[in-house]
């Protein structure tokens, strides 16, 4: 039953082919068995999962079930879960038990979903390879020597290995799409403000957005409908009704105008990956779409813009981790300064410290205008590029990542090389627009992701466009050989 999509599971549960409890037990066994190979989970919540499963079985039996009742998922360990350790992949929060649920968790619990556990991630979501986690790297299910991408590497690996049919994730500069691409699964970063950030531990507040990693676009459409929406506890949450994403999935694509982002094909793109992307675009042409090249001239500046804005916000957001009210505190601080410096110096990992220091530097006296304000202006230019492009086309397409998954350790000593992994994904975060990555083929036996990006609040369109492709292809149904069998040895 591990190979079923969420939509298929929903049908089979209702057809009583198996119970939620049976499904949950099977998946929990897969989670446990996969841990030594993948390290995709930080915490497994078996006990509460079985309790939720039991309640879901009862609801199904009583005819009180909603469309998501009994469907299992995993939460990225960046979402606060009441009574459960919420570590954000950091030693800083290794001892932290959240006293409250994130809005996303609250909503999906209320929808009757079953939480299998909390997935591994780059520390505080800062990383593109999952190597910065305090809990050790996550391995790519397609090849354990390779990274799964990051920062939502645990969620992507879990779905790719079919130990969870769907997982929540977050995306600040590509942290949903890039691992989805590298693991051969579907990922959606919704419009900024579409999903509440309340209870989602902040990295860079103006860029962070919660989303999903799933097997299919249809699955993501089902869950996003319950996960998105206005939240009075998040001032940046937008009060716009959530459309029925599932209802729009099967619209024909005739007349769809697809813009190919010229700048994405110009630099740094692996030739085989490009070929794979071009073939996928051919599928869309067959479906009745037209392709046009569009220019987003400011887009190549998205990496430097991001590496001012994100560290600046992170340096401030992470100031609350000071060893006073929760989290790691150093041993025997000799005074207040020592308490601060050692708690933070010992509690944060190298990449987090690097970004905090970068952000501290760019905001400090004398540099603010040259870096922060300048970056905000360039961000505006990038935003205008997207706006202009969406005046001409319905969606933008291009690669999600410049290459397939790389080896663990290959880029960890060179932050710039690591940062360039997000070269194609960062723009959407800066402009706040929704973007997806869907599996579109394989290069050197590793999955490649096609990125689809739309204007603000065009999630329904993205799902529609992705679903049409997934009806034509089966890349998204491929599964790594090691995880093909239902019972993992």
């Amino acid at each position, binding site marked *: 039953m591990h190979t079923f999509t969420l939509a298929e599971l929903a049908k089979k549960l209702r057809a009583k082919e198996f119970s939620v409890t049976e499904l949950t037990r099977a998946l929990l066994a897969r989670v446990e068995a996969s841990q030594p190979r993948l390290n995709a989970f930080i915490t497994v919540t078996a006990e509460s999962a079985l309790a939720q499963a039991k309640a879901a079985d009862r609801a199904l039996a009583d005819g009180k079930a909603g469309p998501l009742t009994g469907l299992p998922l995993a939460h990225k360990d960046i*979402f*606060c879960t009441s009574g459960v350790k*919420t570590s*954000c992949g950091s030693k800083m*929060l290794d001892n*932290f038990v*959240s*006293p*409250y649920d*994130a809005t996303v968790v609250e909503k999906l619990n209320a929808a009757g979903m079953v939480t299998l556990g909390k997935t591994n991630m780059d520390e505080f979501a800062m990383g593109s390879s999952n190597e910065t986690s305090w809990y050790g790297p996550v391995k790519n299910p397609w090849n354990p020597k390779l990274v799964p991408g990051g920062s939502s590497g645990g969620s992507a690996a879990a779905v790719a290995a079919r130990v969870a049919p769907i997982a929540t994730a977050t995306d600040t500069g590509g942290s949903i799409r890039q691992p989805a691409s590298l693991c051969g699964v579907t990922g959606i970063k919704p419009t900024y403000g579409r999903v509440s*950030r*309340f*209870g*989602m*531990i*902040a990295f*860079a*507040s*103006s860029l962070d957005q919660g989303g999903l990693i799933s097997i299919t676009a249809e699955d993501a459409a089902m869950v996003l409908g319950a996960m998105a929406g206005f939240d*009075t*506890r*998040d*001032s*940046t949450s937008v009060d716009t009704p959530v459309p029925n994403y599932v209802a729009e999935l099967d619209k024909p694509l005739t007349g769809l105008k697809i813009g190919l982002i010229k700048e994405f094909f110009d630099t740094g793109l692996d030739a085989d990956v490009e070929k794979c992307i071009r073939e996928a675009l051919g599928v869309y042409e067959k479906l009745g779409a037209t392709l046009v090249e569009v220019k987003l001239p400011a887009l190549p500046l998205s990496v430097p813009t991001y590496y001012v804005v994100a560290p*600046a*916000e992170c*340096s*401030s957001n*992470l*100031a*609350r*981790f*000071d060893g*006073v*009210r*929760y989290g790691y505190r150093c041993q025997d601080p000799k005074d*207040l300064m020592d308490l*601060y410096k050692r708690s933070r110096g010992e509690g944060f990992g190298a990449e987090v410290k690097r970004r905090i220091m970068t952000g*501290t530097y760019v*905001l*400090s*006296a004398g540099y*603010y205008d040259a870096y*922060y304000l300048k970056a905000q202006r360039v961000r505006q230019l990038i935003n205008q590029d997207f706006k202009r492009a969406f005046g001409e086309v319905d969606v933008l397409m291009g690669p999600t990542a410049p290459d397939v998954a790389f080896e663990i350790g290959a880029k960890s000593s060179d932050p710039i090389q690591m940062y360039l992994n997000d070269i194609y994904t960062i723009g959407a975060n800066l402009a706040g627009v929704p973007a997806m990555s869907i599996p579109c083929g394989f290069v050197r036996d590793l999955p490649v992701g096609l990125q689809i990006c739309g204007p603000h609040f065009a999630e329904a369109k993205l799902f529609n466009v992705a679903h049409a492709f997934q009806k034509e292809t089966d890349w998204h149904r491929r599964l790594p050989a090691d995880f093909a069998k239902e019972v993992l040895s």
Partner: protein
Amino acid sequence: MSTSNNGWETVIGLEIHAQLSTNSKIFSGSATAYGAAPNSQANLVDLAYPGVLPVLNGEAVRMAVKFGLAIGAEIAPRSVFARKNYFYPDLPKGYQISQYELPIVAKGRMEIVLDDGSRKTIGITRAHLEEDAGKSLHEGLPRQSGIDLNRAGTPLIEIVSEPDMRSAKEAVAYLKKIHTLVRYLEICDGNMQEGSFRCDANVSVRKFGAEKFGTRAEIKNINSFRFVEKAINYEVERQIDVIEGGGKVVQETRLYDPDKGETRSMRSKEEANDYRYFPDPDLLPVEIDPAYIGEIKATLPELPDEKAARFVLAYDLSQYDATVLTSSKELGAYYDDVVKALAGEKLPSKEQAKLAANWVAGSLAAALNEHNLEITGSRIDAKRLAGLLGRIVDNTISGKIAKDVFEAMWAEDKSCDEIIEARGLRQITDTGAIEKAIDEVMAKNPGQLADYRSGKDKLFGFFVGQVMKATGGKANPAQLNELLKKKLAG
């Protein structure tokens, strides 16, 4: 102008922090009550738990706008919250949410009256919304401090003046006016002891005629009007001593120590004043439209200066009396009520208004002070006091007797008429009765009478006293004077 200091001119600007009297905090639904058990009013947002977000309290915005309108300021159509980043245990997020480049209120002013009766306008650069910090407690804990975050997130407006004040007295006058104003507007309880109204003073000195300001020191923690004056005067002396001793004033933060009456350098706040301000990405710009401003304008109460001007114009009060009587909204209202009860529908006569002013600011204020009561807690309400004053005006009792009646009214809840009747205090206005008393006194004191008649005018007072004594103080003083003069002349 202060010219006392050997040619040195003092320059003062004040930063006033007024806690807004909202029910809940500026960015969370926690209560703001003073004196609650430690950390019992600090929720996840106030504690800066991971993942939490701020949501702005609309009432705090309304109060800030109200204040802005009352000081004739510009209300920003768009203002922005910014983060002020620094580490301190009472600052849970590691940053304070404040306003930096685009404050909600800018370019206001406040007029103060100086000792010589002249007026001076103090510019108010800006007033911005921000959150208060928690408290560090040091007592009873060896080597450690305890952090109470109940106060963290309490809404504040920080009111920043121009460096327009030239003496500690001016600073106090300005501070008092702001204090009165925020209470009039009912946006701050003004309680300095509890810290809901606090002030930092930026103080510098320069030679008269110098164009440039001297280097300033910021004095923190001045929590009473008296301390403001003392702290500034101490600091001015200190700076002059430093400069005259060949030294240089350093720009620094200093703490006022009320026990020692001095300011001292706060080294802990000195290092690294690099606050790295940037717009808070968790909050959106606050937009205020003219309709909203109009709505608030319509609800503004009569402001202290307006009320004082009305008292001067309509009641013919002196500026001094008007200022005293408008020092709080409640006092002003009480006075208004006394005058109205006294004069009925008509405008009061100048005498009535003055009489009421003297009594409200005099005997009543003294009684309230003695019993440590606010005007709202007065045991004699405006109507009863007006009743008493009415009996003075209609000559039923003299002003002197009225003091006794007032005391009786304070002690027991009876009307002044009841007391006058019960105690037989009604003034004697019957000429015959007064003449009879005069005759008796003259008969009893032939020696004094002879002396008076031989030119010792001063003895007139003696005879007044004797007649008053004989009538139990009830003789109408004016009548008594007139009749006595006649009789003594023989």
